[in-house]
């Protein structure tokens, strides 16, 4: 693959009830990304935005918001999905030979819509939508299936929440930094067994943007480029009852493809830091397994071992992860932004010392129907 770099990133603080509107939020992230790269909008060749019409409360939402990401007079397109997929699309456009630079942006104001009703609309109107499921209740089915098959305990899931909310205390962009214990998680209100309040991610508003550039164009940017080494995306069946809920084959497939591109044969040894899409605490343990950080069913033991804590051999979600800031389709792009900060050595108090290879992961759909895996290096 021809070398493509991330040359700039920008993000807002993630929080609930932001008073900026969609375009103002998107502009904040885009402007920061341009300033970070030390380039101007005139240096941007094309734009990929990320919108969801239900969350935005308008149809063809991209048409209204793209201007704030620099679309005017340019080729601009949109992804309805996670930001990692928008970035993947942006990478392909950059590799096409037509564009030297691509602005990729995502915004979401989850707090302005009705998240449970909106997620319910993702279920099949012909079949199971009438059951009234949302992200929490459907994920609870997956959590139970996973924990039951492999003997994962609620305490092990709680440890993910403790770790990630704790890490968030070092991330000025995070929405919910918390100093909590496993007991606090276990005693938080039960929502849908086995998922408790502190096993869930918050309702966050925010925006994130990254700028991709070919090697030639990356040389003109102010920042040290962060190189994209491998990327892959893979989808599962739509219906929950047709999937193996306890083991994500699509994640393993995507990870293997991305590792092959990146020349990685021992992910747990060769990756220095990972940012994964932990919308619920149990998910981080499942993703450890699918990403090959440990064997199948060993996710609980991996969190117990401390390997994925700050200071461990493979810190996961030093940013605090999605558990600490969840602006839905922004969340995957925020994982890439954090990976870039880590590889530049600019992650402040949450810096993983000497990080050279980073992984970023995004998911889409009910119970993570799709997975996108990125490997980056400095």
């Amino acid at each position, binding site marked *: 693959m021809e070398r493509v770099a991330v040359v700039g990133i920008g993000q807002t603080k993630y929080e609930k*009830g932001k*008073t900026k509107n969609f375009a103002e939020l998107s502009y904040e992230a885009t402007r920061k990304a341009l300033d970070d790269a030390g380039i101007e909008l005139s240096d941007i060749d094309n734009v990929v935005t990320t919108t969801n019409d239900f969350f935005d*409360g308008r149809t063809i939402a991209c048409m209204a918001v793209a201007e704030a990401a620099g679309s005017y007079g340019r080729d601009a397109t949109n992804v309805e999905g996670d930001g990692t997929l928008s970035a993947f699309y942006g990478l392909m456009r950059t590799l096409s030979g037509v564009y030297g630079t691509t602005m990729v942006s995502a915004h979401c104001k989850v707090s302005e819509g009705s998240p*449970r*009703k909106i997620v*319910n609309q993702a279920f099949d*109107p*012909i*079949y*199971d*939508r*009438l*059951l*009234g*499921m*949302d992200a*929490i*209740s*459907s994920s*609870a*089915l*997956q*959590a*139970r*299936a996973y924990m*039951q098959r492999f003997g994962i305990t609620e305490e092990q899931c709680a440890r993910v929440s403790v770790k990630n909310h704790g890490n968030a205390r070092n991330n000025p962009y995070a929405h919910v930094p918390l100093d909590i214990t496993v007991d606090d998680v276990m005693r938080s*209100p*039960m*929502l*849908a*067994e*086995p*998922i408790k309040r502190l096993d869930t991610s918050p309702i966050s508003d925010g925006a994130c943007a990254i700028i991709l550039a070919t090697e030639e164009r990356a040389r003109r940017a102010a920042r040290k480029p962060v190189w994209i080494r491998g990327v892959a995306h893979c989808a599962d*069946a*739509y*219906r*929950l*009852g*047709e999937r193996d*809920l306890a083991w994500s084959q699509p994640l393993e497939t995507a990870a293997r493809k991305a590792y092959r591109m990146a020349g990685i044969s021992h992910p747990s040894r060769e990756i220095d830091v990972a940012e994964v899409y932990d919308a619920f605490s149990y998910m981080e343990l499942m993703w450890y397994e699918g990403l090959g950080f440990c064997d199948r069913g060993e996710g609980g033991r991996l969190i117990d071992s401390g390997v994925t804590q700050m200071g461990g051999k493979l810190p996961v979600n030093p940013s605090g992860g999605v558990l600490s800031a969840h602006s839905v389709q922004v969340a995957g792009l925020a994982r890439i932004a954090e990976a870039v900060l880590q590889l530049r050595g600019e992650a402040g108090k949450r810096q993983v010392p000497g990080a050279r290879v980073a992984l970023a992961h995004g998911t889409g759909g009910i119970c993570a129907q799709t997975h996108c895996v990125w490997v980056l290096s400095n």
Partner: protein
Amino acid sequence: MENETILEVREKDGLLILQGVIRVPYTWAAGAVASRFYAGLRDRRIYGIRCPTCRLVMVPPKKTCHRCFGDLNDWVEVGPEGTLQTFTVVHYSEPELHPLRAPFAYGIIKMDGADTGMTHLIGEADQRALKEGLRMTAVFRDKPEGNYLDIRYFKPVKGAK
């Protein structure tokens, strides 16, 4: 406008917040497969569809096999009992979404003769006694309407362990 109304304008930090609703009527064609599935439920029978290549029996049925992309037409009756694969007891209330009052349970039930699971509600059950492998059977709606709640919920088979 009938489908969109700004109901209220309030202030936060000196800035305006407009609050409204979006109501958009819609029509969904069920298609040949789901139409036939719901016709079966009228007779209190649950049908799946078999993929001729993968041999998988899918319940609820669909037109295309996600694995081999085959066109599916081979109908088979499944059940009347099935096995609970996974479940959750929901403790929060979302009255506009939930057909039952919390605490209630969702489960994935694999009907006898089926290879895929059906996500549904669980009723008439001791929620603390739910476990994987429990034998379940469908409770049908008295007056079927041609939608997923023509099965009201699944309940444990009496005397099942």
